[in-house]
């Protein structure tokens, strides 16, 4: 899902960068106001964990591969979609600048896809599903699955707008691959929520009462 340099025209990359910077500014504001001694190590551990998760490419069909995103994980655990934007931005900067994993000119698009869309879709779908179903496992799984699938579809649309990849094939391919990878993302996200809830429930900022009883 990491769009490399030269896959998107510079002017489109600049637009994505501006949008990403606006939301990154909101994310930095969130970090400034929400940061405390308890959350500080959790945020750093989540960033390290998401970096590691994204580093392992999962082979899908036809020789292609994809990876977990982690946007929903960060947003659900820290109780804000801006947490995902903050963490994913930092992870993508490390990946792009130090390891060439994703482009620099296209980093804005990657931040929008994985941090912004992944975080917001994961967070709000989790909240909606918790109200509807009231089950952490179900809500967490579906939210993480959506937060894996929707950014992939957004990536396909961006590559189409850039003239790099045909829309229909891109949507089908990315949608199919990340619908499969999203299952693993859902399992990992639910496992992480339950793990933290069982060990340090005070660290969770989900705003969902039933989670306290896990």
């Amino acid at each position: 899902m990491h769009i490399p340099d030269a896959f998107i025209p510079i002017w489109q990359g600049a637009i994505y960068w501006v949008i990403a910077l606006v939301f990154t500014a909101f994310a930095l504001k969130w970090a400034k106001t929400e940061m405390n001694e308890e959350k500080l190590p959790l945020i750093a551990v989540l960033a390290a964990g998401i970096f590691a998760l994204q580093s392992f490419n999962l082979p899908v069909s036809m020789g292609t591969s994809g990876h977990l995103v982690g946007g929903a994980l960060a947003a659900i655990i820290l109780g804000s979609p801006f947490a995902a934007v903050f963490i994913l931005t930092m992870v993508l900067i490390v990946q792009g600048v130090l390891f060439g994993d994703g482009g620099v000119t296209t980093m804005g698009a990657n931040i929008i896809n994985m941090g912004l869309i992944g975080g917001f879709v994961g967070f709000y779908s989790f909240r909606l599903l918790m109200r509807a179903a009231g089950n952490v496992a179900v809500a967490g799984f579906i939210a993480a699955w959506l937060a894996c699938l929707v950014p992939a579809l957004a990536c396909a649309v961006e590559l189409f707008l850039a003239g790099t990849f045909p829309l229909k094939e891109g949507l089908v391919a990315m949608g199919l691959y990340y619908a499969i990878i999203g299952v693993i993302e859902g399992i990992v996200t639910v496992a992480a929520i339950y793990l933290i809830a069982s060990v340090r429930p005070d660290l969770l900022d989900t705003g969902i009462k039933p989670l306290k009883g896990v």
Partner: protein
Amino acid sequence: MLVIQGQKELTGGTPQNAEIKEDLNGKYSYSSPMPDYTVGEKTGSWGRVISIIIGTIFAFIVVFGLAWGFRITTRPAK
């Protein structure tokens, strides 16, 4: 040598164009037009492992340092 960060080329039109090859043992391998990245993909398996470990530690330090900075600057005065 100039290395453009993240430079990668499409090798085909769509993932449906993935080239499927059969080796002598009856196993199949695929050449995908659009594989995703892996950290340290050109450094061998051990290089990948070391790259991922270094990157994971670096991500932790960067985010911890930034978050620590925010915590220091926003700490209420006693």
